[in-house]
C-alpha cells in the first residue's frame, strides 16, 4: 500500500467515525467533539492533496478551515452551555421546545 492510499483510507475512516459519533452521543459536548473529528478528517484530506499535487493552496485552505473550526467550537459550546446550564443533565434529547 502506498502512503497516499494509507492516509486517504484514514481520512475516510475518520470521517465515518465522526459521523457515527454525531448520531451516537447524547451529550452536547461529545457531539461537538465528533464534529471536530469530522473537520480534522477534512483537513487531513486537504493537506494530503496539497502534498501529493504540490499545490500549497490546499495547506492554506486547511488553515482557514482551522479558524472556522475554532469559531464553530466557540458558538457550539456557548449554545450548549446556555441550553443546559439550568438543567439536571446534559442530554440533547431533553430540550423539546426552544423559546426565542
Amino acid at each position: 500500500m502506498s502512503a497516499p492510499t494509507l492516509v486517504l483510507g484514514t481520512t475516510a475512516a475518520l470521517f465515518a467515525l465522526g459521523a457515527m459519533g454525531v448520531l451516537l452521543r447524547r451529550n452536547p459536548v461529545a457531539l461537538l467533539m465528533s464534529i471536530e473529528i469530522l473537520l480534522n478528517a477534512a483537513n487531513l484530506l486537504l493537506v494530503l492533496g496539497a502534498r501529493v499535487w504540490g499545490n500549497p493552496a490546499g495547506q492554506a485552505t486547511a488553515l482557514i478551515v482551522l479558524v472556522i473550526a475554532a469559531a464553530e467550537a466557540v458558538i457550539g459550546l456557548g449554545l450548549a452551555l446556555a441550553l443546559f446550564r439550568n438543567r439536571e443533565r446534559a442530554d440533547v434529547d431533553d430540550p423539546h421546545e426552544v423559546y426565542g
Partner: protein
Amino acid sequence: MDELIIPLALGCAVALLSALGVIALRRPVHSAMLLLVHSVAIAALFLMLAADLAALGQVVIYSGAIVVLFLFVVALLPAGGREGAPGWTRFLAGLLTGAAMLVALASAFSVGTPPPVDSPPTGPAPVGRALFGPLLVPFELTAPLLLVAVVGAVAIWRRQERPPREQPR
C-alpha cells in the same frame, strides 16, 4: 513520501484509535483528553506530509485553544456531562450512518486515480503566497467570522441572565 510509510501508519493508527475513544467513552473528560491525543496525532501527520504551517496551527489552535475550551465547558456542565447509554435505535442509526459514510467515501476515493508523480515538498512561503493571493477573500472573511463568533457567544450568555436556582447544587 513512501519512505515515511511506517511513521505515517503509526500516526494514522493513533489518530483512528483516539477518535474511536472520543466517540466511545462515556465520560466527557476522557473524550476531551483523547481529542487532545487525536489532534496531536493529526498534527504529526501534517508534519509528515510536509505541512509545517498547518501542523503549527493544529497544535496551537486545536490542542491549545479548542481542547482547553472543551475541558472548561465539561467542568461547567450539569452532572459533569455524564450521559446514559445510547438506546438501540440511536446505536443502529450511528452504526448505519458510519458504514454508509465509509462505503460512500471509499467508492468516491477509488474512482479517482492517484497522481503518479511525487512532487517535492513545499515550504511555508508558498502557503503564505496562496493565502494572500488566490485565497485572500476567504482569508479576510475569517476575521469578521471570528468577531461574530465572539460577539455571538457573549450575547448567548448574557441574554438569559436569570435569578439563580432555588436549591443549591
